[in-house]
């Protein structure tokens, strides 16, 4: 089943998402990248109804790019999260709501701070030190409660993330086999191997 985790540390946010695209009980694809870079310092993991997720992620990506071109500066993570949340909240009360859950992480360059936002398909948003979506969240959140440290180095952050991935692999029946892991910090967005 679909699972995504994210956590903040000293000057960075790590976002991980599994790479399966499933339909009913069948894995259709095992190398789907579900963590999108929305800008030089912004990352978003998307999960939920297939089709809606990609459509909405691209809609967000292009609108954030448009803002960038029009105003000649990037939206801060908090501003981007507010815009995304409002899009989902308005969509919820429309004829065809998007069924998309998000983890939006970014590095606020002027303030030199990492930010992570937990957003669900209803338009519920909360800034969190760590967050997760999907069945994996039931295992990952309790692990992160115990091991998360907001001042941890990137290596320590990755080690904590590995604990989450291993626990899900061990305890969840329908556990994903592969994850994409991306980091955003002062140097921008990059993919890492775990």
């Amino acid at each position, binding site marked *: 089943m679909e699972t995504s985790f994210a956590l903040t540390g000293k000057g960075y946010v790590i976002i991980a998402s599994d790479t399966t695209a499933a339909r009913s009980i069948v894995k259709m694809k095992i190398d789907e990248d579900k963590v999108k870079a929305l800008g030089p310092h912004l990352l978003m993991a998307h999960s939920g109804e297939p089709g809606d997720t990609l459509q909405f992620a691209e809609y967000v990506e292009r609108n954030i790019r448009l803002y960038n071109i029009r105003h000649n500066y990037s939206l801060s993570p908090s501003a981007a999260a507010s815009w995304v*949340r*409002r899009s*989902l*909240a308005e969509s*919820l*009360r429309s004829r065809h709501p998007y069924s998309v859950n998000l983890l939006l992480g970014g590095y606020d360059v002027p303030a030199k701070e990492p930010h992570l936002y*937990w957003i*669900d398909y*209803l*338009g*519920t*948003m*909360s*800034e*969190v030190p760590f*967050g997760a979506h999907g069945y994996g*969240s*039931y295992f990952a*959140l309790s692990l992160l409660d115990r091991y998360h440290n907001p001042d941890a180095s990137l290596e320590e952050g990755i080690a904590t993330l590995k604990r989450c991935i291993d626990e899900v692999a061990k305890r969840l029946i329908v556990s994903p086999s592969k994850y994409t892991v991306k980091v955003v910090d002062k140097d921008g967005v990059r993919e890492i191997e775990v």
Partner: protein
Amino acid sequence: MSIMEYNGGSVIAMVGKECVAIASDLRLGNQALGISSNFQKIFPVTDRIYLGLPGLATDVTTLQELFRFRVNMYTIKEEREIQPETFAHLVSSTLYERRFGPYFIEPVIAGLSQTPSGGFKPFIAATDLIGCLNFAKDFVVAGTASSKLFGVAEGLWEPDLEPEDLFETISQTLMNAVDRDAYSGWGCVVHVITKDKIITRTLKGRMD
């Protein structure tokens, strides 16, 4: 599964002597799963009005943004600050606009209204999710722990409490009520509004 209990959370407001207090828990959940222990449900409207919005979390944020907009428009057009009574009716009519597809929020309003002589009179009110106003002289409650809050508040509240005593009363009421509610808790925030200052304190609570 009720949509009013999907995210959990509770708010209470109490009247004191020339002061009012409003307090809420800090939990954001998805049914029984806790997501955040720092989800604010109380927002300042003016220097002397605070608004509590327990209910569906998406509507907490949407309504907070909507009320900020409407109060800003009022301030610009009228060239004065909104009074709590007026604001309560703004809340009521905003919710009734969505009579047949409501926002799932039960707002609580606490503030000090200015009297013609220049003094301040405590004001509290609450509405249901479609904007039916309830003006109370003592206390108002809302959210998933409302039934427990009624019980404890009924036992602890007394008239004409000074700000510090009112703080103690509202804190004890909220903390003890949310401990009996699985969907509320994870810390509390209390605001006491007096005529010349606002006292805001965050309380630690049980994390289970």
